[in-house]
């Protein structure tokens, strides 16, 4: 084993975290847990950016991660407001039951 951790280790960890997030979105029926899985996916992408930023000797990755975090914060706020409005109208957070638009 080399002394330092190679870039591939970070990339594989990030890919597995992203895949776990995708599994969470596909499997779970609770809207809040689906939202948490989306945040997991965003964090996996952040890890990829920071890993490349270190191994390509560039700071662009870390700046982009900063913007991703700001946008993720805004998205979480708006998404949770939507979920609260949804719960007020339907009294359930099971995404299988939210099917008023279904043909």
């Amino acid at each position, binding site marked *: 084993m080399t002394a330092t951790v190679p870039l*591939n280790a970070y990339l594989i960890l990030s890919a597995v975290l992203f895949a776990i997030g995708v599994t969470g979105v596909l499997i779970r029926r609770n809207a809040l847990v689906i939202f948490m899985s989306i945040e997991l996916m965003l964090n996996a992408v952040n890890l990829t950016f920071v890993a490349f930023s270190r191994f390509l000797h560039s700071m662009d990755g870390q700046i982009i991660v900063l913007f991703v975090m*700001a946008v993720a914060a805004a998205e979480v706020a708006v998404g949770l407001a939507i979920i609260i409005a949804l719960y*007020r109208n339907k009294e359930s957070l099971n995404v299988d039951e939210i099917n008023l638009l279904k043909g």
Partner: protein
Amino acid sequence: MEWLVFVPLAAMALITAVLVIVLRNPVYCALSLIGTFFALSGIYLLLQAQFIAVVQVIVYAGAIMVLFLFVVMLLDLGHELPAWLQRDRPRVLLGICVTLLLLVELVIPIGFRTPHGPQGPYTSELVGAVGNTQLVGRLLFTEFLIPFEITSIILLIAIIGVMVLARR
């Protein structure tokens, strides 16, 4: 030597991530996600991105997950239906198969080769000499000024949107 720090942090990140999608009580899922964020923050420190590591703890674990926990406890859902594994078994298996396919497609092209790219000027020695936070600040206000200003507008729009959506 770096492996001694990387392997436990990566294991903690993976285990807590799997717990997020497996546990039934949404409060436990949120707490597991906070554990994932702390593990990722440690990995960012290993990658010499000290500013991002601290911002990860402050913003993600300290603000976003607190918001999540507020909403989870406000809506007071209790446990998800325990029959999600028995009743929806075909859908769960299909989801896992699709995810494994995605994982294979992500790992095989780039997981085992050494990516090459144009090397930038910010080597580890330069970042260590000037300071990670100072460099991020310097770049944020010169080269990335326009995205920075647009981000402030995004946050303002998000605030207005939340106030409109959450009103009775």
